[in-house]
């Protein structure tokens, strides 16, 4: 449980926008979107790490950068002790086997012209593991059963459009699992599913983490589900990680005002008067032009003068609880 399978160190991803003609004449620099700014975290074997934040905070970009589907602007990605940040696509290929991806939209994530067999066999074929067709088929059946699509015969030659959203998402997980990866980036895997099916898919992820020791990076905007399955949670705001600690600690003693606001926004099963009530005002600022200092300060209820000038560093307040706020105290 303590073996680190993945480590992100100071990851940055900036998107450079096109300069307008006016800006060119005025000699201004091209606008840059800071989608991911200096995010670090580690994933241990069999651990589920949640990345939580509102829309546009850069969590999906983070997922893509982690898998090197987008080249990071700065920082490094370490898989099993090996830095893969600068590897060429050819040399990346064996590492691709260790890291897989599950998408948000189960209707978009499969080629409509391929049947389930071909969809799940594809990663094996790409990785050149399809020498023996009987083995491939056995592997596909085993994987289908692992994601609780039983009996496999009933699904194996069907087409994606013949399946429900939940079934498709299981197929997507099966496709990720078929290579026996070390960790899977699950990008909002349940947000497009009916509430009744979400639990099943989340429990499937939990079971896979326990039984197969597969680590997950679970990207979501839903703190409730994150708390349900995650061991650790990273909270992101405008491209920055603002708080990082174990799931229970985050929910019961959040330190960052933004985390507090997120938790306040979750509807409690039993409405109660007390509890944390932090409500943020205004909109998320433009990521191409973030506020100076602490990025939350225009919306923060406890902001002081220092917040507008100095960007708070991520600091450990004990028990591996990291938080980036000038006023955070245990």
């Amino acid at each position, binding site marked *: 449980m303590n073996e680190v399978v993945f480590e992100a160190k100071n990851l940055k991803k900036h998107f450079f926008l096109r300069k307008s003609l006016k800006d060119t004449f005025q000699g201004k620099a091209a606008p840059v979107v800071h989608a991911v700014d200096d995010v670090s975290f580690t994933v241990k074997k069999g651990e589920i790490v949640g990345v939580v934040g509102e829309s546009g905070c850069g969590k999906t970009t983070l997922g893509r950068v982690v*898998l090197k*589907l987008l080249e990071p602007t700065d920082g490094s990605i370490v898989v099993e002790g090996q830095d893969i940040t600068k590897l060429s696509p050819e040399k990346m290929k064996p590492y691709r086997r260790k890291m897989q991806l599950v*998408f948000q939209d189960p209707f978009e994530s499969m080629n409509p012209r391929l049947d389930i067999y071909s969809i799940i066999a*594809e*990663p094996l074929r790409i990785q050149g593991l399809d020498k023996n067709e009987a083995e491939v088929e056995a592997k596909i059946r085993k994987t289908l059963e692992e994601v609780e699509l039983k009996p496999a015969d009933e699904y194996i030659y069907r087409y994606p459009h013949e399946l429900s959203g939940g079934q498709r998402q299981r197929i997507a997980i099966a496709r990720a699992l078929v290579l026996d990866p070390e960790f899977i980036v699950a990008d909002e895997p349940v947000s497009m599913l009916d509430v009744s099916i979400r639990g099943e898919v989340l429990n499937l992820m939990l079971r896979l983490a326990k039984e197969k020791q597969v680590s997950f990076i679970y990207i979501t905007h839903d703190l409730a589900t994150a708390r349900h399955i995650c061991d650790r949670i990273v909270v992101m705001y405008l491209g920055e990680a603002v708080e990082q600690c174990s799931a229970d600690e985050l929910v019961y003693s959040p330190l960052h005002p933004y985390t507090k606001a997120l938790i306040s926004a979750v509807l409690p099963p039993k409405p109660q008067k007390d509890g944390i009530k932090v409500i943020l005002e205004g909109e998320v600022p433009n990521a191409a032009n973030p506020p100076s200092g602490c990025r939350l300060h225009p919306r923060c209820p406890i902001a002081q003068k220092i917040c507008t000038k100095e960007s708070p560093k991520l600091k450990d307040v004990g028990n591996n609880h990291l938080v980036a706020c000038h006023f955070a105290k245990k």
Partner: protein
Amino acid sequence: MKKRGFWPNLLKFSQEFISKPQGRVGLFMLAIFLFVALAAPIITKYDPIDDLYLAESMAKPAWVRVFPDNRNLPVTVHAKLGLHSWKTNSQFNLKSDEEIGENGFSFEVSPEKQTELLYQFRFESDPPGTFNFETQYLVKAPEDNTTTLALLMISPNGKEWPLWKKTIYGSEDETELLIDSRQMNLKFQLGLTMFDEVSQKVFQEKGNYKIVLRASTDGEPAMISFIPVAVNIQGKLHGVLGADHMGGDLWSQLVYGTRISLLIGIVAALISVFIGTAIGIASGYIGGFVDEFFMRLADVMLSIPSMPVLIILSALMGKSIWNVVILISLFSWTSTARIVRSQTLTLKERSFVEAARASGASKSYTMVVHILPNVIPLVFASLVLLIPGAILLEATLSFLGLGDPTTPTWGRMLHNARSFGAFTSGSWNWILPPGLAITFLSLSFVFIGNTLDDILNPRNRERS
């Protein structure tokens, strides 16, 4: 045991296609053209290029006789008088003889009685311009025999016109015989002046005409063989669509033109779609410099007026239909490339492409396995829509005289019609059919293409 969804999908697709009126009409029209193209040798017996002087220059179709004005115009007659055509006096036996040629016949002639082969036909119109007889004969007789052969026509009033007479001593090898009504010596032989027209005199009356082949010999009996006698009377009315300036058959030109138009249209469209798809996928998926290069190239190709360039190039490259095909393909790949590129751009962002990338798929793998099958329906629709363009371009080039003069195409028909005065003489039978054929063939492809586009284009389809 593997259930593949191809055939059920195809069935569903064809049902959907047939359910649309436009698709039905387009398919029906195309089926007719395809039938005409495939069955061309059955539909018409003339060669569109080599068979000339079948009728008088610019003859009208035969069926215009139903109009009172045309009732007396002479109709073209092409007959081959073989074994079974002739009536004979029963003194000798007429039998088949393949030795001299196909469907040949022979008979024995003895000194006792001269023999006569007779063919009778009705002719009920004004005299034709010209006529001719064409055959080959062979005589086998002892050395000292004298054999006389003659061919004559007998008018309804009983007047005999000795068109040909020959005296043969002993045997004679295969000899060609051509009697043309315009020959000067024939005129003198018939006692006419050089300014008379034989056909005017011979066919003066209406009624039953007889063609008679007469033979006599002295001494021993002689064997005489003929190949079927070809009788050609070049009238002012001819066939289904009449004749062009050289007496060539317009109907056969139209029928064989269907083949060429379909061939050129489909091959040119296939080539340009192939180029367009490859370029579209490559520039859409790879992007960057490749994209920039091909799209600017496409812009250039689009902004160059293609007609003048095609005219110059086809003049430089020479007259061949394959040059035309290549030129047309070079100028029509751009639209496909643009459509495919834009579709590739959206496909590229779809999650399944990213999933393949996350598994380590190379660019070429992704393009072939994920992008190509998903743009094929679109490509198919654009293929069908490119065909009429190619057909029209080919017709245009041929019309301008830049096509291959030895290939029967609709454009060439129109070119000849324009060059040889069909427009001024009001030869609607020469101008309208190729024009309408081009229109309807193009229209059938446009109908089919529109229907395909309706069904296959993702823009018009809900997510399935």
